[in-house]
C-alpha cells in the first residue's frame, strides 16, 4: 500500500461520485451532463448554511461530516486493482461494515438536529431499519470471507479467480443487496430520506449550501463504496478475460450502481414496518444459515 493510497481514495471518491451522478441521470432517462452537475454543485456552495431552530443544532451541523467520513472510510476498503487494493487492513471487510455502521448515527444526528417532526420520524425509521440489517451485513461479510480464509477484501477477490462468489453463494448476494441498499439510503428502501412523504429530502431536507453539497457527495460516495464492494465481493472484482484489471472493476462497479439505481426507480418505496419485519423474520436467520452454507462450500470446494 503506497503512501499515496489515501489520496487515490479521495480522487476515486470525487470522480466516482461524478460518474455515478451521470449514471443516475442516464437511468432517469435524461441526457447525462457532468459539466452541469459540477456547476450546480459549485453554485450550491454559495448559498448560506441553514441554521435550524433546534436545541441540538451542532448535531445537525456535524452530521454531514460524519456521513462523508463513514462513506469515504467504507470506500477506502474497496480493492480496485492488484496494484491498488485500497487501504489494506487485515480485517478490511469488517472495517467496511463498521464504516457503514456509522451512517446510522449520522442520519440520526441530521434528523434529530433539524428539529422538524417529520425529520425525527425519518431518523427513527432508519434506526429501526439498521437494527434489523446490522446483523445480516456483518454475517454475510464473514460468509463471503470464509472461502478466502481471510477478512481482507483483496484476498476475497483473489479466491474468486475461477468463479465469482455470486455463483457460489447466490443466497449471500440476495441477502446482501437489500441490506446494503438500505444502508446506502437507496431508493426502494429510502425510508429516512423519502422525498415527498417526509417533506423535501426527509432527514436531509433542511441542509443548504455547503452542507447540502456534502450530503449529496456523501450519498454518492456511499453508493460508490457499496457498488464497489458488491463488485469486489460477489462479481470477482478485477478478474476478467480481456480488459485490464482496473477497467473490469470500474465497469462492474458502474454496472452494479446502475442496477441499484434502476431498481430504485422501478419499485415503489417499501414501507418501513414491512422492511423491518422482513429483516428480523427472514434476513437474520437466513444470514446465519448463509454462514453455515459458506462453511460447507469452503470445505467442499476451496480446501
Amino acid at each position: 500500500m503506497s503512501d499515496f493510497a489515501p489520496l487515490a481514495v479521495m480522487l476515486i471518491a470525487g470522480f466516482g461520485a461524478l460518474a455515478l451522478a451521470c449514471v443516475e441521470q442516464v437511468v432517469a432517462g435524461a441526457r447525462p451532463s457532468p459539466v452541469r452537475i459540477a456547476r450546480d454543485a459549485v453554485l450550491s456552495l454559495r448559498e448560506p448554511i441553514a441554521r435550524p431552530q433546534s436545541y441540538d443544532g451542532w448535531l445537525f451541523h456535524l452530521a454531514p461530516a460524519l456521513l462523508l467520513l463513514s462513506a469515504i472510510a467504507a470506500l477506502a476498503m474497496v480493492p480496485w486493482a492488484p496494484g491498488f487494493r485500497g487501504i489494506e487492513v487485515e480485517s478490511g471487510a469488517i472495517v467496511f461494515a463498521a464504516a457503514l455502521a456509522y451512517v446510522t448515527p449520522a442520519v440520526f444526528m441530521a434528523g434529530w438536529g433539524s428539529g422538524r417532526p417529520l425529520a425525527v420520524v425519518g431518523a427513527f425509521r432508519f434506526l429501526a431499519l439498521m437494527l434489523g440489517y446490522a446483523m445480516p451485513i456483518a454475517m454475510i461479510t464473514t460468509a463471503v470471507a470464509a472461502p478466502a480464509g481471510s477478512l481482507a477484501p483483496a484476498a476475497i477477490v483473489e479466491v474468486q479467480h475461477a468463479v465469482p462468489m455470486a455463483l457460489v453463494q447466490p443466497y449471500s448476494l440476495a441477502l446482501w443487496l437489500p441490506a446494503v441498499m438500505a444502508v446506502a439510503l437507496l431508493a426502494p428502501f429510502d425510508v429516512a430520506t423519502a422525498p415527498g412523504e417526509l417533506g423535501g429530502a426527509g432527514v436531509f431536507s433542511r441542509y443548504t449550501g455547503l452542507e447540502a453539497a456534502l450530503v449529496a457527495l456523501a450519498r454518492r460516495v456511499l453508493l460508490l463504496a457499496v457498488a464497489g464492494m458488491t463488485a469486489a465481493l460477489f462479481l470477482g472484482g478485477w478478474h476478467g478475460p480481456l480488459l485490464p484489471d482496473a477497467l473490469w472493476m470500474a465497469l462492474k462497479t458502474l454496472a452494479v450502481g446502475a442496477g441499484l439505481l434502476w431498481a430504485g426507480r422501478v419499485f415503489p418505496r417499501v414501507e418501513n414496518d414491512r422492511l423491518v419485519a422482513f429483516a428480523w423474520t427472514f434476513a437474520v436467520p437466513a444470514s446465519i444459515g448463509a454462514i453455515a452454507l459458506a462453511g460447507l462450500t469452503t470445505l467442499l470446494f476451496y480446501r
Partner: protein
Amino acid sequence: MAGHDPAGLGLTPVAGAEAAEVLLASSEVPEPLASFVAGELARSPGLQVVGGMVDLPLRGRLLGDVVGGSPAAQGEDPHAGHDMHGGHDMHGGHDMMAIVGEPSADGLVMEPIDFRFGPVTGVLPGGLAIEVSLDGDVVASARVRALLRGGVDGPRDQPDLLTPIAWQVAVAVAAERSEGAAPPARLQWERVAAVEIERSLSHLAWLRSLSRSLGWAQLVALAQRAIIAVAPHAGLPAPPEGGASLAAAEAAVTRVRRLVEGRRFAARTRGRGVNADGALAGPNARAAALGVDTREEDPLYRELGFKAVIEEAGDARARSLARIFEAQASLGLARLALERARSAAGAGTLEAFATGGVACVEGPRGPLLAVPGAPGGAARFAAPGTEAARTAAGAAMVGLEWSAALVVATSFDLSPWVVA
C-alpha cells in the same frame, strides 16, 4: 400543475418546497397561501412566485362569459402559531417526572408528535394541509384542511379552480336552461369532449401526486408523459387531426394503467383506507360500489355508449383503479364526441338534463351542481360529497403508519378549492 411539462420550460421539479427556487401556480396565488409562501418559503433566497403564467387557454372562447375573475379566497387564515417549523413541540418540557397521556397500542405512554403536513408539499395539491398527531410513526389522529377555500357542500359563489371546464359547462347549461335557449348540437358535443378530456387530465395529475407519495419514480415519469400527451387537447376542441393524437394519448394512458393494475401498486394500496361512507360521491363512491354516475342519464353519453366504472373493494387500490379506468374511457368518449361535433348541425336538444333549472355535470371528483343566479348576478355552485371525502380521508389515516396514511389520504383526491 396539469398540462405543462416543467422540464420543457427549462425547470426541474424538486421534491420539497424548501429546495424550490421557482413556485409555478396555475392561477394567482390566493391570500392565505400567499402569506404562507411569503412567510415560510421566503427563506430560500431566489424564490419567485410565478402566478397566472400557465392559465388554461380555454376560458372565453368555448362557453361565453367568464365566471368571476380571480377567486377572492375567503379561506380562514392558517393560525400561524402552530405550523411545521415552529420548533419541535415534541420537546415540550414536563414539570412532572412521569410522562402522562393514554397508553399507545403497545401499552406504553408516549408523547404524541403533532405537526401540520404543510400546504405546500411535493405530494398533495398546493393549499391542502393535514394536521397530524403521530404516536411514534403511527397516525393517532389526522384532520385534512384546505387553506384556499373555506366552504361547505352548500352553494357557494366560487368554482373549484382545479377543474374549471366542468364548472363552467354547468354554469352555461344552467344559464341556457333558465332562459330556455337550446345551444347548437355542435357546441354540446364539444362540451362533452372538453369535460371528458379535463377528467382524464385531472385523474392523471392526481395519479402523478399519488405515485410521488408512493416514491415510485417510474410511475411518476409515465404519468407525466401521459399528461403531456393529453394536455394539448385540453383547451379547445382541436381541429380534425386532434383525433389522431388522442389515440397516442390513449396509448400513454394504457401504459400507466398496466402499472396501476400491477402487483407493485397493489402491494402498497390494497386493503388500505377501506371506506364505504354513503355520503361519498364521484370515483370515491363508485370505488365502493355505492355512488351513481350522473353521466348515465345524459342522452348524449348514452348515445356514445357510456358505461360507468364500478369497483367493489372501496380501498385505496379500488379508488385508483376506478380513476385510471375512467381516465382511459374519457379519452375514448372525447374522440367519439369530437367526431360527432364535426358532423353535427342545427340546434341541439334542450331537455338534455332538465332538473328544474339546476344543471348537473359529472366532474372528476363527483357531480357538480350549478344554480343560475339572478340575471346579472353570479351563479351558485355546489359539490356534494366533498365534506364526506375530507372526513373520510382524515378517519382512514388513523392507525396506519405515516407513509401508508399519506397514500390513503392522497387516494381520496381532495381539491384544496372545495374542501372545507
